[in-house]
């Protein structure tokens, strides 16, 4: 009996060790990026490379923040992502509600079309979008970029919101309607508060889609509306290979979303696994 228990305990310990190793290896690349950002710029290029900084220094951050246009780029990234998130939610929430509640033919056609939209390669609509934004006077503005980003986040938002609405029992609104609520009133006062967690998850994903997007930002912005990913990419061409400051900029740009992940991890996991596992 004890021998069996011992064997089980050893097996478990081995599994833990294996898992720790895997997770450490997985987490390491970004940790290395952050550690490198605290090296001196010349240290960052040392041969052979060291993992820990020889001298802890903020010089890379100073240089990164000294890049022309860096404040504007951060403001642009935030503005664009917030705008895109708002547009996405305003459009996705009512549409997803209608699809999940009324099951009309139009709703079914719409959800299939919206899902197919997810398959469109951005590079295919990028160039026509440049022309359209020119016509609308929206090139090189956060609004123009936000609209382009919404083409990515809207199908995803609809998909997520449909799943969240489907988890709400229809009896809830029926009761509200019996109590004298209109359909719109039932949606706003009764259903939305119940799915507010789902709306938050959807908002996170819409925000991230825009925050991390590169191709549309590259095509649709020149100087004024440039976002941080473009600025980071420019570190390698414009200024040679400035690895040190580049790692500092990448760290600064990633920290907010990593903190967001830690704070909201339960909800993010719920959102990620929702569609797939239900299927």
């Amino acid at each position, binding site marked *: 009996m004890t021998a069996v228990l011992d064997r089980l305990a050893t097996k478990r310990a081995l*599994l833990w060790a294996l*898992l720790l190793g*895997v997770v450490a290896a*997985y*987490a390491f*690349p*970004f940790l*290395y990026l952050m550690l490198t950002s605290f090296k001196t710029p010349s240290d960052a290029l*040392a*041969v*052979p*490379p060291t993992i820990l900084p020889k001298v802890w220094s903020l010089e890379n951050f100073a240089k990164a923040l000294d890049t022309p246009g860096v404040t504007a780029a951060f403001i642009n990234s935030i503005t664009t992502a917030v705008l895109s998130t708002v547009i996405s939610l305003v*459009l996705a929430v*009512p*549409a997803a509600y*209608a699809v999940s*509640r*009324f*099951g*009309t033919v*139009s709703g079914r056609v719409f959800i299939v079309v919206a899902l*197919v939209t997810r*398959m*469109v*390669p951005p*590079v*295919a609509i*990028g*160039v*026509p*979008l440049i022309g*359209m934004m020119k016509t609308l006077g929206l090139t090189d503005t956060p609004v123009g970029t936000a609209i382009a980003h919404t*083409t990515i986040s809207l*199908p995803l938002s609809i998909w997520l919101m449909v799943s969240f609405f489907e988890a709400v029992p*229809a009896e809830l609104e029926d009761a509200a*309607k019996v109590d*004298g609520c*209109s359909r719109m009133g039932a949606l706003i006062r009764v259903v939305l508060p119940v799915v507010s967690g789902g709306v938050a998850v959807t908002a996170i994903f819409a925000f991230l889609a825009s*925050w*991390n997007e*590169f*191709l549309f930002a590259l095509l649709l912005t020149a100087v004024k509306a440039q976002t941080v*990913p473009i600025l*980071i*990419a420019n570190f*390698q061409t414009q200024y040679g290979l400035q690895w040190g400051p*580049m790692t500092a900029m990448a760290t600064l*740009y*990633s920290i907010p*979303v*990593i903190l*967001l*992940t830690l704070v909201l*991890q339960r909800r993010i*996991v719920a959102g*990620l*696994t929702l569609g*797939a*596992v239900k*299927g």
Partner: protein
Amino acid sequence: MSSSTDHLVHKAVAPPTPAAKPPRRRPMSDKQFALVLILPAAAFLAVFVAWPLVKLVIDSFHDIAPLAGTRRFIGFDNYTEVLASSDFLHAALRTLLYTVVVVTLEFSLGLGAALLFNALGQRSRVLRTVFLYPLMIAPVVAGLLWRFLLIDNFGLVNALLTKVGILDRPADIGWLSDPDIVLISVALPDIWLTTSFMTLVLFAGLQNIPGDVLEAAKLDGANARQQLFRIILPLLRPVIAVALIVRGIDAARAFDTIVIQTNGGPESASTTLSLLIYRTTVRFGEQGLASAMGTLYLIAMLAVAIVTMRMIWRPGKGQS
């Protein structure tokens, strides 16, 4: 899904009875109400996705000189040129290979991690959080990070390989400069970024497998391998299908990570379709040609999408 379809059936058979409430001033049927709610999103997708796609297809039948501002209808000439060009065919093959590499590695690693997490249960939660964070990192950042790790002479990967004795000198493997292996190397950031997605989805699927099914198998003397291939994987099939499709589509559209690492080089060895189309239109101004490539690329993606959609959509959707 079943609750909403039931709902539909009720509505279709018996229109809403006015017993509950007297009709409002402007009564609107549920159908109309649904349409009103869907319309804004539908209009957005029509204007900013469907219309650009229509323009893409129209452009593909034209010879366009953006600088001179001229365009001329030339029928299928762009298509014949594209399909005869080895650049396009090679890029298409590379896209396929890249997608297969990314999805295969992600799936194997993701499944392995998910099984580990599942075996260790709730106490592995903190580690799952750590596993999550690469998903939040911008592909541009991931691309630069891996480029930094893979640099021939002072990159960490080759330095470590030299230290453990696999390489004689750090410059022995040119991850991003050797045309023979570059397509695998540029896939690394993509794999790193999204293996977490596979893990999370598969883990959630594993959690839904009833414990007594595996217990019964164990009692019947099934070993670990039999449990995995005879029970776990077949039960996970729908989850696996969705995960593979979502990731496959994303991988086939990869752009940021590759552009940042190699810009398609060396000798175009990492030029996938996204990069080729981008370069053809932005660098060379061949908008007609690029549109024909884009249209073909789109058709291929949609074909895959529709086939898989039917695969996923059938179960559960109609009657359950």
